[in-house]
């Protein structure tokens, strides 16, 4: 091969190398980028008035006066919608009319019997009122517009009308007049269709704005409030404005999706206007405002993580991590000291090393099975899943990491240190404790910190030993006997088993971000620490 080619080849080889490094970095960015970007959304977002209402009700935070003012303001803006719907409802849901009419008729009968009039006269009025009453009921129940209009006109132009003046029957005539106005706007023959659509519309509005003013208070917090986040509100607003319909006309293809505006369904009725109103006034209805929800870390979750924060999970992860370290650090460091300073290289030590290697390679799920079978079912460290059992399982998991890192750190301590100490007359124990260990401490610490990150992020070992999906934040002594939510497990649980997976994406992202940040923070401390040690070592030698 020619020299030039060889040179070119050399250059391109270098290029390939750099390219692989670039790929490595981009892999990191591709994985972490979306998690960071979307995870921030759990903390910084545009909260609606519903959000502030929820925070005030459930967590007792916020300026009461200001919030009430805001609520009043948004209620005023929403009034148009609620009024129009309730007007329309009267034409569609005639039950209330029938009820009212019955009440009026009853009232009138009582009124009539209290009057002092000759009986035939009374009877005549009674007959007449009954016929008017039954006519109106008939009109209410009918869906034929012409017929209804005829009846209503007949009632209104009744010759007896004057004679009912200033009796309870006037109320009925009022009703009739109002109803005849509604009938002009509503297509009565479509009443059934309207009814169905109205129920659907009201449900959609409830998810957007929260319960209607006259609704009884729902029991689950998720139903008590509308959309608390502006981004979700816009999605839900779209659901209110449009219906997704499918067009099945082409029989050789699957149905095609059609975005059908809801206002078309209610065309010509009072409800028609609310859609454009809603779209135009969405900001004054929901009052979005950017909030920084740092309390996400310290709030307890509410209603299966739909509202609130992730405090119990964070706390659980802390407990599990520190518990694991509590067991693994002494064991690990002592083992490392033994292996480096005292052990003679024989088959037994060889076996121990092989076992440590094997332990490092055991799949994490097997640790979970082992933890369940050994710690809980055999030696009963606790009656059921507990932080203690989980920590112990994690401790075994990180033990090889701690041992290896400590070993490595102890080995890097220059031999001269030990020799100097021994030559000054210190015993071997003393040399280890007072000279080697302090010198190796930074390295050991790095190993510990790295295994801390590992323990915080592991999921499989705690599934069967420590993690639950719902639980209160634990107090320190309760960790001995009780299980806890933990970040890693709850991420899995929320993104696969939660009933409203799509609605709480922001919580999932927030949780992942928290876990990743936690682990990264721990690792960055380790990295910085190691850089310092390196500098020192370089400086010394």
């Amino acid at each position, binding site marked *: 091969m020619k020299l030039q080619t*060889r040179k070119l080849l050399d250059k*391109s*080889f270098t290029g390939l*190398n750099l390219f*692989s490094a670039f790929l490595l970095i981009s892999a990191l960015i591709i994985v972490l980028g979306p998690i960071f970007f979307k995870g921030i959304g759990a903390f910084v977002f545009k909260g609606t008035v519903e959000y502030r209402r929820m925070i005030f009700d459930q967590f007792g935070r916020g300026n009461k006066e200001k919030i009430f003012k805001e609520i009043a303001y948004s209620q005023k803006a929403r009034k148009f919608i609620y009024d129009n719907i309730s007007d329309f409802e009267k034409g569609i849901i005639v039950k209330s009319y029938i009820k009212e009419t019955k009440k009026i008729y009853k009232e009138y009968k009582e009124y009539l019997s209290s009057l002092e009039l000759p009986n035939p006269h009374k009877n005549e009025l009674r007959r007449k009122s009954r016929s008017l009453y039954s006519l109106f009921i008939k009109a209410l129940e009918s869906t034929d517009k012409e017929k209804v209009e005829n009846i209503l006109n007949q009632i209104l132009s009744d010759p007896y009308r004057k004679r009912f003046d200033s009796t309870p029957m006037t109320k009925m005539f009022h009703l009739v007049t109002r109803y005849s106005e509604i009938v002009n706007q509503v297509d009565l023959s479509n009443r059934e269709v309207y009814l169905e659509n109205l129920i659907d519309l009201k449900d959609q509005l409830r998810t957007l704005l929260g319960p209607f003013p006259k609704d009884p208070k729902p029991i689950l917090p998720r139903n008590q409030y509308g959309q608390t986040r502006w981004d979700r509100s816009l999605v839900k607003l779209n659901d209110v404005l449009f219906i997704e319909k499918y067009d099945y006309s082409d029989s050789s293809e699957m149905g095609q999706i059609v975005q059908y505006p809801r206002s078309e369904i209610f065309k010509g009725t009072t409800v028609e206007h609310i859609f454009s109103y809603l779209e135009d006034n969405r900001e004054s209805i929901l009052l979005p405002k950017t909030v920084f929800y740092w309390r996400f870390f310290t709030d307890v979750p509410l209603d299966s993580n739909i509202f609130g924060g992730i405090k119990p999970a964070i706390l659980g992860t802390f407990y599990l991590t520190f518990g694991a370290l509590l067991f693994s650090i002494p064991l690990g460091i002592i083992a490392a000291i033994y292996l480096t300073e005292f052990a003679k290289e024989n088959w037994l030590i060889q076996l121990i090393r*092989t076992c440590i*290697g094997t332990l490092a390679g055991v799949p*994490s799920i097997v640790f979970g099975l082992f933890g369940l079978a050994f710690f809980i079912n055999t030696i009963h460290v606790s009656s059921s899943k507990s932080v203690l059992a989980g920590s112990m399982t994690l401790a075994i998991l990180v033990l090889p990491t701690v041992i290896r890192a400590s070993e490595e750190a102890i080995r890097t301590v220059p031999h001269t240190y030990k020799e100097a100490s021994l030559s000054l007359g210190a015993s071997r124990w003393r040399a280890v404790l007072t000279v080697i260990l302090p010198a190796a401490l930074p390295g050991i610490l790095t190993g510990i910190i790295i295994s801390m990150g590992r323990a915080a992020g592991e999921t499989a070992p705690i599934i069967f030993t420590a993690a639950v999906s719902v639980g209160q934040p634990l107090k320190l002594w309760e960790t001995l006997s009780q299980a806890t939510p933990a970040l890693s497990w709850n991420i899995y649980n929320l993104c696969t088993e939660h009933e409203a997976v799509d609605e709480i994406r922001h919580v999932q992202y927030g949780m992942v971000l928290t876990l990743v940040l936690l682990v990264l923070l721990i690792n960055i401390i380790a990295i910085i620490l190691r850089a310092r040690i390196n500098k020192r070592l370089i400086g010394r030698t």
Partner: protein
Amino acid sequence: MKKIRIHPGNLGKQLLSTGNTRTKRILSFFGHSLLFLITGVSVVSVLFIFIFIFRDALPFFKLEGFKEFFTSTKWYPSSDNPSFGALSLFFGSAIVTTGAVIVSVPLGVIAAVCLSDVLSFSLRQIMKPVIEILAAIPSVAYGFFALVIFAPLLQDSGGNLLAISSWIVCTPLILLITIIGSGLLASKISPVNSLYIRIIAALIIGIPLFTGLWFLSSHISGIQISSGTNALNVSIILGIMALPTVVSVSDDSLTAVDRSLREGSYALGATRAETLIKVVIPAAKGGIVAAVILGIMRAIGETMVVWMASGNAAKIPHPWFNFLEPIRTLTATIAGDMGEADQVTGSSRYHVLFALALCLLLFTFICNLIGEKFIKRSKKITR
């Protein structure tokens, strides 16, 4: 060290303390044994893990025998007449591990070479943390990424994604081939070293290759992926997860190769590429093999990612190398089925999970032994 302060007066005592008094020796012996016992904890743990897994796995083989477990692909543990053919599970684990190796080993080894020999010291200081951070990201976060971000992406625009990645993978390769080929071709055509001839030769080789790639990628971009949670998704993510292991272990073995070897090669007139490919990498072969084995162990033992994003269909894809179909692995089966398997009744459904765990355990154990052997051998060679 500042810590050691010895008063002159105590010197005699200190010196005497090394004397072999009886009590001291006994104490030392006890201390020694204590340390040994504590060190033995890891041995005991391994032993217990084996015992506990084995104890619960044994009843399965007693009840159901070996044949179905290892040869059938019918995995119906919950049915009234259950069948426990775990072959498809083994296959699932194998295929994602293979995929992870395909993703991580070439990239990882090249990146390790880059780290050990190409990058300057300061750039290395940047790259090392990147690798460490990749290693530190919890598996559940990777699983979340695979399930929530990657799977929908793969399902919606999988074809294009595959096409782009085929470009990313193939372009460097084709460039390499073109450079080597054009060099050879140019030297065949004319002995005179002319830039024009070289360019023409490069065009002759490069153009057909790139058009081939173009056709390939346009063909690939037409592929519709029916399910984003499939073997490909998991393979890529597991590959990224195994990368740090592969990179750091092979980097270690590459840096361990003695400087004199490199210098010798340079002295003979070799370029850096030639030195690396012909001298350094062969010398560090053992360590690189060990890195691959460790990477395999990492991939096969991973639970959360495969549980969340593999699709969990217990079947062998059709055709068998089809990475675009969902599969099910051993670890995901253990994690998922454990909850529903009724332990108390001693049913095979419970014990089969331990049988799976035992297989995993044995596999990683053997892998570990082989890996250790390779590391040892590479240490012998390089030192």
